[in-house]
């Protein structure tokens, strides 16, 4: 059904899956998630701005891209950012977006006949939701490893301006990924309990929009924080 097929008395009618149409014929839950994502854009812009403003203004290290020698102890701190690990975690998050969009397509095409093994794989919403969850957990694992190694190397949220702004920015993003993983597990629970049908596609779509947003935020963070010195 398209927006043009929406009920005439749109505001009073129930959309599939428990939502309501707005007076524009749009599902209120999708309006809500897009509004939420818009506000999240501004939240992350403020966090990224803070990081960039304080970048290079820490009087003492460790620093993200430069070697630093502690003048009092003579200890040498190499550049602290681990680009290979972060590149791998970026790839993991990008692939999780692919898995998420395939999960949505699988739910939407639940009743389309599957003629081959490949069609059955593509049509398995459980498989792709599991894949998205595991890739999200993999990303969080990389972040936990990164945070732990930073702390062992002497960088905490209280060490310097870089540490404060870095941990705040990436910590907020990690919290969003964690919330996304929990959300995906609730979808999996529904899928195991009664099966996700095409009429449920909107609730999967909303979770997918959130998940992709977390992905695009990381695309920006990866470039601005990790790759640009």
């Amino acid at each position, binding site marked *: *059904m*398209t*927006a043009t*097929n*929406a009920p005439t008395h749109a505001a009073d009618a129930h*959309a*599939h*899956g428990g939502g309501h149409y707005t007076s*524009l014929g*749009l*599902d209120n839950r*999708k*309006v809500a998630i*897009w*509004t939420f*994502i*818009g*506000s999240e*854009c*501004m939240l*992350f*812009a*403020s966090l990224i*701005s803070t990081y*960039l*403003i304080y970048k290079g203004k820490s009087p003492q290290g460790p620093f993200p891209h430069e070697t630093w020698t502690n003048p009092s102890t003579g200890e040498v701190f190499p550049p602290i950012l681990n*680009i290979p690990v972060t*590149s791998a975690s*970026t*790839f993991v998050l*990008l*692939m999780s*977006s*692919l898995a*998420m*969009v*395939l999960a949505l*397509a699988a739910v*939407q*095409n*639940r*009743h*389309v006949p599957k003629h081959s093994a490949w069609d059955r794989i*593509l049509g398995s919403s459980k498989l792709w939701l599991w894949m998205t969850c595991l890739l999200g957990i993999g990303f969080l694992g990389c972040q936990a490893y990164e945070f732990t190694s930073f702390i062992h190397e002497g960088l905490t949220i209280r060490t310097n301006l870089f540490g404060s702004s870095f941990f705040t920015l990436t910590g907020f993003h990690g919290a969003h990924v964690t919330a996304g993983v929990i959300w995906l597990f609730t979808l999996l629970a529904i899928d195991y309990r009664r099966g996700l049908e*095409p009429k*449920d*596609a*909107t609730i999967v*779509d909303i979770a*997918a929009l959130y998940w*992709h947003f977390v*992905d*695009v935020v990381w*695309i*920006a963070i*990866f*470039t601005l924080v990790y*790759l*640009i*010195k």
Partner: protein
Amino acid sequence: MADNAPAAGHAHDDHHPTWSIYWKVALFLTIVTAIEVSAYYIPAWETSWVYVPSMLIMSAIKFAVVVYYYMHLGYDHKIFRALFTGPLIIAILTLIGLLFLFSKLAIRIGLLA
């Protein structure tokens, strides 16, 4: 896909991407990310003036591709597009404005001593 697509505010469901498009987009994102990371390790590129602009452009392309294809914004209702692009524009302008006020950008154009 369109026959089974949900109601839910999809104004143009019949134009949704296919599975093969999703895979191609993932491949594209992987290649661009690989180029970005490679550039970081190529001294001639990393030290040249084109490094930062090229990184920002590649990042913006990846951002736009995910939003267009995976978030279906290119196929969805224009209200959703407005709900996303409006705050995004405000966010980008705020970021640029703050950098001009407080950061190296301000120093480069002589706003700060």
